[in-house]
Structure formats: C-alpha cells, structure tokens
C-alpha cells in the first residue's frame, strides 16, 4: 500500500526543460508546488569533457530510468520492429535534458502556427498532403510572443534579432515574426569557417545569420560566459553557461520556498477520483510506493513518457487511459525530420575542434513558407544550420566519400581530413499523419513490468521532398564555400526515436481531435495539464525547446489566473 503524502496544490511530473520552467510562475504566484523528478541533482563536477560518457554511454552519472524504458519503433503497422536503441534521447536529472541539449533556442515562424489556413489561402486546399491530420494551432504567433520574450530573458538566450516590432534587421533572421525586443545577449562568437560560410551564403543572395542559443555569450545573471571547449553536444556545462532549468528557473522557484524538489521519484500512474478529476500521482523511490495528492497535476516528462503515463493511468472514468475517451492520446505523433544530412569535404582544415553545436550560421530562406511553393510539389521547408562541433571519436568515424572505412588507406585519409569535413543540420517541416502514432508496446516492458511506448511512424512524401530540396540548397552552399566533395544521406524512411518528438497529446480547440485545450489543459480531466512538445501540432523548421518553454510558462500562468476554476 502506497504511503499517502501531505496534499499540495500542484504536482509537476518531470523537472526538465518544460516542468522546470512552469514551476517558477506557479511558485511565484504563491502556489505550493511539488516537482517529482526521476533523476537527481547533477553539478558542474559531473560534466567532464568526456566524449565516451556523453555521446556513447547515456550519461552513467545519472539515474537510468529513461534508458530502461526506451520506446520500440517500427515504420508502420505491418513492418518489423527496428533494432531497439540503447540510449534514450532524454535523460533523468533535475533540469532534465536541458542539461545536455544543444541549447538552440528558436522561436517558431508565423507560418508554423497557420499551416492549414495559409496553405489553403496561398496554394489551395489540395496542397495539404494526403493523409495528414495537421490543423492550425488554436492561436497565432502573437499570442505566444510575450512568453517567448519572458523565457528568453528568464533563462538567458543569446542571438541576433531580425525583426523587432516590425523593423527588420538584416544581421538577424528577417523571416522571424515581430518580437518585442532584442535578445538579452549578443550571439555566440564566430569562427574562421563560420565566417567563410556566411560569405558564401551572401554571395548566393541568401540571408545568413547567427542562430539563437540558451548559452551565455557573456556573463548573465551571475553565471559565466561560454568556454567553447567543445563538449556541449550531449554534454553538461562545467561553468553553468548553458541555461538549463537546473541553473535558472528551478533554483529561482525554490528560492520562493514554495517549490519542493523530490528527486529519484519514478512516477508510475496518475490517479483519478470518481468525478473524473485527477487526484494525485503514484511514484516509487527505491521500491517504496508513495501517493502524492494534488489539486492539479502537470505532466512534463517528454513526448513518449507523456503519452505512456496517460495510457498507463486507467480508471473507471478513463478506461482507455487518462484523458483518452476520445482516443486521441498517442495520435498526431511525429518526430522532426532532422536527418538526411549533407556532408561536405573541404580542401582545408576547418579548425572546428572547439565550439558548440549552438554556435553557427543559419539560413532560413528555404524554411517554412519563406519561398514560393506555387510550382513545387510540397509545402514547408528546412532551416540550414552550419555549426562548430567536432569531437575525436565522431571525427574518426567521418564520411570517407566512398573510400575504405579501415586499413592504411583509411588511416591516411582521416589523418589528412579529420578536420576537413562538415555535416549540416537541416531541420525540416514535419507533419502529423493518420497512420503515425504512439501506443503501448504489446510485448516489451520496463523493469517495473509496465509496457514501454511504441512508435509507429515514418516520414511521408512531403517530408522526403523537403529533404531532397533542402539537400540541393545545402550542396550549393557548401560548393560556394569551396567544398570539393559532397555526399547526401538518404532522404528518410522510418522515424524511429527522436530528441524532437511531437504530438500524442495535441493542443487544439476541438476535443474530437485534440487531447488538451488551447491552454494545455485536458479536454476531459479539467485539472490535468500537459507540458512539452507533445502538445505541438506542427514542428516548423526549428528546435522545439524554446516553444515548449514558452508554452509551459503560458500554461502555468493560465493556471494561476484560473486557480479557482481549475484547482478547486
């Protein structure tokens, strides 16, 4: 029998990028908040510049919950399971994956909120890809702008604005929607190679600009500036210059005295009372079961676990899983098409051994609807991103452009070229489809005996066409900068498991097609909120985290303003 703990106002499940942000406005408003985190606190001492540990061993210094419940994946309902991954893309700790993410902190562009209506208006309804379940967001960018602004200043984002109050600045992204003010910090510094790529983009008539990062380009809020040491890719920051929630919003929320952080709390299910309201959360620590009652529960555990937790939480009121009486939990799933990179070989050293993946130059000319699609056979596009990121094991595994992958010939090749190749990162518009979804795996279970999440999803024609189109653009860019060889990866098939996973608890006004309402609260269980990219219905062509954080702040603020109706 679980030990029943003292009642609280709000329980947040998962203190990562989303939950760690939401806790702050809640605690500041006077609500008593308990943050249940499966991991522990990690500090600068835990963040050695160690490629093996960061990139190959799934952070052994952390609690291994996520790594024991890695989703299974298959392309479609009739295909065989893909080989199961050994490392979950997320990890457990206070601050969650915001400790080791790349920290690219993009806003979505205006089009991303209005894909359906804008496509119809500009090209006609027939241009919405067949089988897609995409909907417009229930609001436009201007609704989210104040929250983007709030988070950018609260956690600290460096970057170059391109549109302040409608005034365009060609040093920044002129395709971005209007923002209230510039970033709180200037962009991260450049390098010789990034400068070269900037010049090349300009000579093609494109508009390159430095990307935004939740990394300090100068000291911010009494934390250090970035040290550019080269281990930021799945690495924690040894000087707290990466603005994870563990060093920003969470300690600030704790300082109010109203956020209680409970570590090593492995949440198993959410309880529901006879009236269909959630009543609290069951969790396990070291084999001991606890029940934490709460007036409101916010689920903030990453897309796969958000869906799994709801599906595992069955009750009389919700026999198919919590908030799933409309059978929408797990639907409208998609992962960002971040793959299909282009790799280039240059006849000179790039001097890219240091730096970080968020330090780079972007081109948005071929993203979203920033170019005319009238004569094209797809909608959307991709952001082209060139960053300074290289580590030794990864460098040794470089693309050999058709040469042997081992032996003396290989050795001579990598000896000369280990610092001469570059792989672009192209994030592409990805849409939800009827037959791409998450559910519970019928066979594979976690160590507690609960089924893991199963991904059934593949990139469709629209995504593959965007991939081929943006690969063309990327190749032109590399060639313009002097690349002597260019290689393109296949344009994509099965989605598999991803760091950019969306949907499963989509946000929208229609309860027949969406799990949560426009504020992130369940259409079916009114005191259940969901935080994370699981509520997002489109991906845009940019990293999701800042949008997730802006939405989390907005959901928390909505709860504060409507406490009497939601919380009591």
């Amino acid at each position, binding site marked *: 029998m679980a030990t029943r703990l003292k009642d609280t106002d709000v329980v947040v499940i998962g203190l990562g990028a989303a939950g760690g942000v939401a806790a702050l406005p809640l605690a500041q408003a006077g609500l008593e908040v308990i943050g249940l985190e499966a991991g522990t606190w990690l500090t600068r001492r835990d963040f050695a510049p160690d490629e093996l540990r960061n990139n*190959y061993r799934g952070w*052994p210094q952390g609690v291994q919950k996520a790594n024991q419940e890695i989703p299974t994946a298959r392309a479609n309902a009739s295909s065989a399971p893909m080989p199961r991954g050994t490392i979950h893309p997320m990890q457990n700790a206070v601050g969650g994956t915001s400790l080791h993410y790349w920290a690219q902190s993009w806003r979505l562009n205006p089009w991303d909120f209005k894909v359906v209506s804008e496509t119809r208006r500009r090209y006609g309804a027939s241009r919405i890809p067949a089988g897609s379940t995409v909907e417009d967001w229930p609001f436009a960018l201007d609704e989210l702008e104040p929250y983007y602004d709030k988070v950018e200043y609260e956690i600290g984002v460096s970057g170059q604005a391109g549109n302040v109050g409608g005034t365009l600045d060609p040093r920044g992204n002129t395709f971005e929607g209007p923002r209230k003010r510039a970033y709180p910090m200037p962009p991260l510094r450049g390098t010789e190679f990034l400068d070269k790529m900037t010049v090349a983009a300009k000579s093609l008539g494109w508009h390159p600009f430095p990307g935004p990062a939740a990394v300090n380009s100068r000291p911010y809020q009494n934390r250090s500036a970035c040290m550019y040491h080269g281990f930021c890719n799945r690495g924690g920051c040894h000087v707290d210059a990466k603005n994870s929630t563990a060093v920003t919003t969470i300690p600030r929320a704790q300082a109010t005295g109203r956020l209680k952080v409970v570590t090593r709390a492995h949440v198993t299910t959410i309880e529901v009372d006879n009236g269909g309201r959630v009543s609290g959360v069951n969790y396990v620590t070291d084999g001991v079961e606890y029940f934490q009652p709460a007036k409101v529960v916010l689920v903030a555990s990453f897309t796969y676990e958000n869906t799994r937790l709801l599906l595992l939480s069955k009750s009389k009121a919700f026999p198919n899983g919590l908030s799933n009486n409309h059978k929408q939990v797990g639907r409208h799933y998609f992962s960002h098409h971040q793959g299909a990179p282009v790799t280039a070989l240059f006849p000179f050293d790039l001097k890219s051994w240091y730096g970080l993946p968020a330090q780079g130059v972007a081109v948005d000319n071929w993203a979203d609807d920033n170019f005319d699609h009238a004569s094209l056979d797809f909608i959307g596009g991709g952001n082209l991103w060139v960053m300074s990121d290289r580590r030794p094991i990864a460098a040794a595994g470089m693309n050999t452009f058709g040469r042997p992958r*081992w032996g003396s010939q290989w050795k001579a090749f990598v000896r000369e070229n280990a610092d001469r190749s570059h792989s672009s990162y192209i994030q592409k518009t990805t849409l939800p489809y009827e037959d791409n979804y998450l559910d519970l795996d019928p066979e594979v279970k976690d160590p507690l005996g609960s089924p893991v999440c199963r991904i059934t999803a593949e990139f469709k024609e629209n995504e593959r066409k965007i991939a081929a189109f943006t690969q063309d653009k990327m190749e032109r860019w590399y060639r313009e900068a002097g690349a002597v060889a260019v290689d393109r990866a296949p344009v994509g098939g099965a989605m598999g498991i991803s760091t950019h996973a969306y949907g499963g608890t989509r946000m929208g006004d229609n309860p027949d097609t969406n799990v949560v309402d426009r504020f992130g609260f369940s259409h079916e269980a009114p005191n259940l909120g969901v935080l994370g990219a699981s509520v997002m219905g489109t991906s845009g062509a940019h990293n999701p985290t800042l949008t997730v954080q802006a939405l989390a702040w907005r959901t928390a603020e909505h709860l504060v303003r409507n406490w009497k109706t939601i919380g009591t």
Partner: protein
Amino acid sequence: MTFISRRDLLKRAAAVGASPLATKSYLGPAFQGGHDVRPERADLHDGMGGREPLENLTASEADLLDAVVARLIPTDAAGPGATEARAVRYIDRALGGPLASSRPAYTSGLAALDRFARSLHGKSFTDLAPAAQDAVLTAVESGAATGFTGSAAFFALLLSHTHQGTFGDPYYGGNANFVGWDLIGYPGVRTMVTVVDQERLEKGELKTNHKSAYDYDTFTKASGKTGGR
C-alpha cells in the same frame, strides 16, 4: 550560485597543467617507427609490450582481437595505430562494464571470424599474412563471410569499439600516449578555449594539450558501469 571567472579558470587550468601529464595507466608500448613518437615515454611502460592481466577476454580472444585491430587501424608509415593505442585493453575493460551487453557478440563473433579464416586459408586468423587477414575482414565487413551469421553487424561493432579504444579518453584504457588524438590532429581536451586560443588554432599555432578529462581535478571521475553501445 557561485560564479567562476575566466581568471579563476585560467588559474585552475595552470595549476592542473603543473601536474604530471598522465598517469602510468594511460601509457602503452612505445612505438618504434614512424613519426609522432615520444620515446621518452618508453621507460614508463609496464614492460616490453607485455599484456596486462585480462579482465574479460580470454587470452586467445585477446590474441585474435589484437590481430584484428592491428589491421583496422594499422601501425604504418603514417604512425602508430590501434595496437599502440591499446584499443584491445579498452575493449577488454569495457566488456566488464559499459559494453557488457556486447560480450556474447564477442564470444560468438570472434570464434566465427576465426572459423571463417580457417575455412578459407586453413590457418588461424592470427597466423595469416596481413593481405590474407584483410581479405578475411573485407568478407566479414560485407556480410559475405560464410558460416558467420550477422558478420557485417559484428564488424561494425568491432570497428566502432576500436574507434572508441583509439580515439576515446585515455582514462578508459585506450588512446594510450594520446596516439589516437595525435593521429587525427585533435589539439586536446581543454576546459576553456578563449578567442585567442581559437585564433591560435586557426593560425596553426595552438599547442596540443595531452590531457585526459580526468586530469582536471574539477571533475568527478567516471565510473562507467552502465549504458553504452
């Protein structure tokens, strides 16, 4: 929140820099030919290229693996290879921890590889001339090796672990004498890269830093008992 200034970090880095570059356990047999050789390290080695006690592999598995990695990243005119990096020592240790889930693959894969070599040439892989060894490995890599289910996957695993043992942090028993990092021109683990450092790198004037991450005492040592691929 404590605040670390660049100045403090500089001081710390300087203090670390004054300590010995590496402990004995990082060092492998001295490389006798080619360039990038640091003969002064030879006296620090635990013997004349002798093998330390194995932790997980059997002696015959280790012999076979020694012969395989010597072909994957050979010792040649371009300098030391996986042998000098002690990639097999890395794999042997890791098979008892982070790579434990690969132990069965090594048991069956190495046995199958040797059976295949014998079926082709009538000799153990270790007794073949380099060219014949390469032919065996090429067949294993492509999946064409007979009597060897999943040979391509096993080859990919071996190559990946050989890379880890040659180019990973010396803390884990491979990349001895930093030979892997020197091979690809990696200028080394640092905790800070200033604008000036980056400019020096761009001009080819940045001094290579031979340090393990764990030579910096600001970091908790890795235990590395879980995870891995």
